[in-house]
């Protein structure tokens, strides 16, 4: 995203956050988007988180083969990795692919079929009506999905570890309950909030300014996912640097 694009992105966000014409209509759109982003992504996030947790446990157990390291460390490393990095970031990248491409292609198609022009001619603030509900749904539902992802990732670690025999049930539970710092949850939720904003606003921007036809909509969709993923990783570093 070069400076011109960044400037247009900021102006689009400014227009999106203008006072809604009718709150009732916007609320309905927000709940629809919450359903799409939150409920619609639950299955995917659950499967990915459980498997990542299980694989993490096996890999930590593989790497920490030493008589000097207690096996309880497997649980605590898995817990902190899941909470601080894997659940927020992997979930966000997966959601950028699933939701980001859908948002970009939906808004892009509306642009090339003149539906956005129709909204503007009616006197409706098109960025507000189309983008604001998505952003609000993103910043509320992505943190919820991340919390679910954390729980499932740690649970997946338990299942993977105990079923493979890499760690005993008691050792894993002792590991995840020892020296727990609740602040890590705060860091993860701040990340999830920022990622939720990126996942919805960047694809909305890419879709909103599409010119052309089906090919350009597809290109915008691809660009939306790529830019979202890079933005997520950059913001991941910045938030981690600032909060830890």
């Amino acid at each position, binding site marked *: 995203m070069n400076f011109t694009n960044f400037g247009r992105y900021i102006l689009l966000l400014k227009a999106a956050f203008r006072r809604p*014409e*009718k709150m009732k*209509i916007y609320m309905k759109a927000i709940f629809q988007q919450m359903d799409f982003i939150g409920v619609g992504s639950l299955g995917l996030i659950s499967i990915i988180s459980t498997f990542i947790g299980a694989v993490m446990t096996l890999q930590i157990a593989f790497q920490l083969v030493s008589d000097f390291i207690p096996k309880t460390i497997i649980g605590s490393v898995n817990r902190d990795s899941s909470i601080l990095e894997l659940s927020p970031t992997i979930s966000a990248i997966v959601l950028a692919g699933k939701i980001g491409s859908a948002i970009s292609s939906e808004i892009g*198609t509306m642009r090339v*079929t*003149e*539906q956005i*022009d*129709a909204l*503007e*001619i*009616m*006197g*409706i*603030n098109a960025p507000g009506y189309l983008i604001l509900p998505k952003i609000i749904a993103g910043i509320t539902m992505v943190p919820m999905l991340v919390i679910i992802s954390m729980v499932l990732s740690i649970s997946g670690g338990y299942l993977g570890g105990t079923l493979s025999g890499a760690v005993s049930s008691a050792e894993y539970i002792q590991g995840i309950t020892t020296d727990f710092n609740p602040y890590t949850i705060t860091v993860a939720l701040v990340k999830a909030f920022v990622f939720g904003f990126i996942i919805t606003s960047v694809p909305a921007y890419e879709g909103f300014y599409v010119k052309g036809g089906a090919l350009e909509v597809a290109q915008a969709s691809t660009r939306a996912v790529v830019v979202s993923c890079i933005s997520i990783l950059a913001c991941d570093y910045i938030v981690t640097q600032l909060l830890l």
Partner: protein
Amino acid sequence: MIEIKDIHKSFGDNEVLKGISGKFKPGVTNLIIGGSGSGKTTLLKCMIGLHTPEQGSVLYDGREFTQLNTEERIEIRKEIGMLFQGSALFDSMTVEENIMFPLNMFTDQSRSEKLERVNFCLNRVNLEGKNKLFPAELSGGMKKRVGIARAIAMNPKYLFCDEPNSGLDPKTSIVIDELIKEITEEYNTTTIVVTHDMNSVMGIGDYIMFLHEGKKFWEGSNKEIAKTDIDELNDFVFASRFMKAAKDKL
């Protein structure tokens, strides 16, 4: 009345509109005609604010549209109805929801009042009972009629139609043309139709503005258009074999 004064618009080095002026009166069907690339759709988009002209002004009953801020523009846009070339119906909404959309946004009417208005508009375009269909289930002509129904839902003072006949068979085109003319006379709207369809020109052109290479070449009515000596206009009007044959017979 809508008045345009000295409209200039360029895209990069390509000057599309080269100083166009004119007046569009209420209660009559105003047509902007011209060949492909003559600038008629660009002029329409400048008039409704989808493009910003580099020079010139657009006046809606004396209100200078190009100088207004966003809120003031929105107030004028609430008085505008627009039929798009591709109808621009909202894919995710039914016919009823499409027509009800502006009513939901800008009125405090009860659901039954809004439904009554929707049914009135659908009845007006001869589509009664099609409330629950989605745009994907409609034919091209039906989409145009739903587009008109949505455009008149808010009782607009100004009605814009961008190539309302494109992609339609001649019979359906005539139905759409007559509908536009009837609505214009019935509600005394200032109607501006962008078209290159000669059936429309001869059928409903009360006032016609002919554009050629970004300039206004001629203005007049459908009764006068066939009697001009302007080569560019005659080339356009009599381009079709049918019109040429009709002229030869005369």
